[in-house]
């Protein structure tokens, strides 16, 4: 992982940094037995896996993804195919709703987010970055 300027510790300045973080999040999810009791946090980690994949892709295109969700969401809405963009925004929305307990998550919800929204985003990123996982 590269270092931030001004000596502030680890930073994510390259596509590879984000791919590494996405792989780390995948390893965590693989270690988890998802149940209704933890499907909310599993879905939140799934979103962060997607976040690092789309930020890696934006780095690859040389586009600033910013440091806020707002700037990344705008870049995704502008640069990704409409269906992939909507899937990413759905993952973001669910992570926010689950984090603040405005919606309950089940194993089925997690599986739906993974299969119908995360996978298409991953496949799209892999067209440019084949090592993405």
């Amino acid at each position, binding site marked *: 992982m590269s270092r931030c300027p001004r000596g502030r510790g680890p930073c994510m300045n390259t596509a590879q940094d984000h791919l590494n973080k996405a792989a780390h999040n995948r390893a965590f999810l693989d270690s988890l037995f998802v149940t209704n009791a933890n499907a909310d946090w599993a879905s939140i980690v799934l979103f962060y896996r997607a976040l690092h994949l789309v930020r890696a892709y934006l780095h690859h295109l040389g586009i600033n993804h*910013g440091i*806020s*969700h*707002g*700037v990344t*969401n*705008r870049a995704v*809405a*502008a640069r990704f195919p*409409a269906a992939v*963009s*909507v899937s990413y*925004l*759905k993952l973001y*929305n669910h992570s*926010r*709703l689950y984090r603040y307990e*405005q*919606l309950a998550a089940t194993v089925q919800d997690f599986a739906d987010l993974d299969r119908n929204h995360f996978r298409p985003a991953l496949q799209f990123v892999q067209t440019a970055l084949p090592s993405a996982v």
Partner: protein
Amino acid sequence: MTRSAAHSRAASLKRSSAKEEQHVIETAIRRRAAEYPALRRVLAIDKGDGLDLHFFVAEPFSAAEDQVLPLVSEVLRMSRVLDVDFMIAPAGAAENVALSQGARPVYEYGARSPE
């Protein structure tokens, strides 16, 4: 022009652009909202250089969310200066949470759309 005067002018221009963009986004939501019948209410929370838009939708939630997401995507593409965040949530208790945080109404279901 001194450096502080230049800074002050730049900040003033940014504020003015942000205000203009906020108006454009909120007007677009009001104009388009009727095309999304699941949409019940839109509230906005001002966040300095950003805007947090809360879209409240009817049940069933998942279908309503899918209906409204393309509108959200369109709104995000309209932003240039503002850092626009969003949430799509089931209509209900969370609306009071947003209102307690100073949210402003942008759209109400059944309201007449602007010309």
